[in-house]
């Protein structure tokens, strides 16, 4: 069976100031029609670059796809012309970004922007496109949609703008929606609204979703499967329940313990992962997490491959089997 999306051995670099930044290092994953997955990791771990490559949106130069394939419905998107890729974007794969203002035109009313987006991909009359625009804005819960289509982006709150972006992304019924930290700049209350909306839309419309976040807490209730990235590598992948219950990579374990719990009554000191992520301008030879890892051994000087670690799971840690009983980050194996 072909997957909806299959990313194979994808590597992306950037050249800046004479240095090569290894932003994404040979990542591979698949997802099926209607599935929802999350890609998590701290900033700079390659989450955005990884999906921008899928969208054909890596600026070249300074960027360069060093290797790999992105199969969408079996077709390698990396081999398409810009013209063909434009048809895929919006119609088959759509993306919502953290800052809606980067994708909305500040000097055009939102209705016009939506109508244009609809007419680019669908052969419909202006009136039909307008009706569809209002319908989409209703769908994403924008109050008084019919009146507000004449308003400009700055007249909306951050949460409303994000709803408009989602409406824009969904106008052409994409099969895959990529949401790149769409709630990071919003208050928790508004974040909860957007999460709820996305869930509803997915069950109504059935598209597949890649939800990108730096917050492991946020995605817990949102997706079925989680991919964890660290310094451009996928270090772990697991069904959502398994990941939170039994992380099989020290980085995931550390991240889970560094998250404060709002319902933790006797809070103690937060576990913290000491140190910093590696400098991506320097080649990484061993395990990228090794300098911060309490479980590091000599073997970790060699890059651990991402291997199967139980049903539906993968881990890129030499010691994943030993990690199975560990519940506290740093506790001896």
């Amino acid at each position, binding site marked *: 069976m072909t997957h909806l999306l299959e990313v194979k051995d994808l590597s992306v670099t950037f050249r800046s100031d004479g240095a090569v930044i290894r932003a994404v290092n040979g990542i591979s994953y698949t997802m099926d029609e209607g599935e929802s997955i999350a890609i998590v990791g701290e900033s700079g771990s390659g989450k955005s670059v990884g999906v921008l490559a899928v969208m054909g949106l890596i600026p070249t130069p300074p960027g360069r796809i060093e290797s790999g394939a992105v199969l969408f419905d079996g077709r390698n998107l990396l081999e398409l012309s810009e013209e063909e890729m434009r048809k895929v974007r919006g119609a088959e794969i759509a993306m919502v970004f953290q800052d809606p203002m980067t994708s909305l035109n500040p000097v055009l009313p939102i209705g016009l922007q939506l109508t244009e987006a609809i007419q680019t991909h669908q052969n419909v009359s202006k009136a039909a496109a307008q009706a569809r625009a209002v319908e989409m804005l209703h769908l994403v819960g924008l109050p008084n949609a019919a009146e507000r289509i004449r308003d400009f982006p700055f007249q909306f709150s951050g949460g409303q703008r994000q709803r408009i972006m989602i409406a824009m992304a969904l106008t052409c019924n994409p099969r895959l929606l990529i949401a790149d930290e769409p709630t990071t700049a919003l208050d928790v209350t508004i974040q*909860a609204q957007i999460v709820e909306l996305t869930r509803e839309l997915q069950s109504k419309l059935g598209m597949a979703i890649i939800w990108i976040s730096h*917050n492991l*807490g946020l995605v817990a*209730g949102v997706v079925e499967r989680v991919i964890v990235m660290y310094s451009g590598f996928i270090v772990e992948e697991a069904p959502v329940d398994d990941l939170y219950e039994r992380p099989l990579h020290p980085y995931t374990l550390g*991240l889970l313990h560094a998250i404060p*719990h*709002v*319902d933790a*009554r006797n809070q103690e000191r*937060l576990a913290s992962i000491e140190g910093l992520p590696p400098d991506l301008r320097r080649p990484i030879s061993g395990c990228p997490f090794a300098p911060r890892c309490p479980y590091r051994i000599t073997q970790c000087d060699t890059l651990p491959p991402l291997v199967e670690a139980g049903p539906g799971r993968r881990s890129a840690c030499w010691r994943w089997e030993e990690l199975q009983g560990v519940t506290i980050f740093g506790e001896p194996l």
Partner: protein
Amino acid sequence: MSTPAETNALVQVRDLKVHFPIRKGLLRRQVGAVRAVDGVSFDIFKGETLGLVGESGCGKSTTGLAILRLLNMTSGQVTFDGQDISAFPESRMRAMRRHMMMIFQDPYSSLNPRMTVNSIIVEPLNVFQIGTPAERAERVRELMELVGLNPAFVNRYPHEFSGGQRQRIGIARALATNPSFIVGDEPISALDVSIQAQVVNLLSDLKRKLGLTYLFIAHDLSMVRYISDRVAVMYLGRVVELSNRNTVFDHPAHPYTRALLSAVPIANPKRERVRQRIILEGDVPSPANPPSGCRFHPRCAFATAECSTVDPPLRNLATSGAESHWVACHYAERFIQEEVSAPDTIA
């Protein structure tokens, strides 16, 4: 309005108001006011951390800035260490400032990119003329060590450091004059999760070591629970709930607090799936034109006719002897009985 008066307070805030004028037209006539802070009262006890939470635009930063008198208050009173500083002329205020410092949210823009770490940290010592040049240099070394920075990097520039390290530079600078009170305005919001924990732990250690008192402003409620002794919840220029942290988190009595807590995601998929959530509709209204009655009533699921007309005072629900629990809701007694949104609690 009744005021939460308690003993042993380092900072006392009474009916603080900060209104920003809205001007229009050629003559810049005042046509209204943004009531950013509109009658706020609380105490910050010596040695405690008071967490201040609420959605953005609720007036948290303005409160912090006004307490430090980095911003003019419209009315009200702020007492620091027993002295009413609200009426201090700037000359007297200058001498006070070394005792009260601020840490800002954005470690990228709050540090001057053209100054070295040394000149950033030493600046307050120069301003307040503390120590000889040699003593100041020694103090900078000491401060860098205290916040976990390598003193060898003293001549580097901010851009050579990561976000978490820059926040440490900001903390070192704030501590230079040995202040007793620190306002942290979302000091960890811009940092990655793994780095947030490092900075929060550092702040806790420093508090213990140096006997500091914090006002910790944040929108991340989970972190506030870790760091605070007591928590104040703000909505549209007012404090709507104030108590010790476990009361606020486990027995919140204001519908706004309950909604805020319920919006916080829990890093546990199984619990997250069964959790009953209160989803707040809409956005925070404009403080230029706050709703009548209870300011929260247009977004409150429990609002009655009374709520839209009568402004509920902040009142203490605790029976005598028990720790105080201040709430500004007509029906607070009813809500306090109910359990919180989370179906179970981590012991």
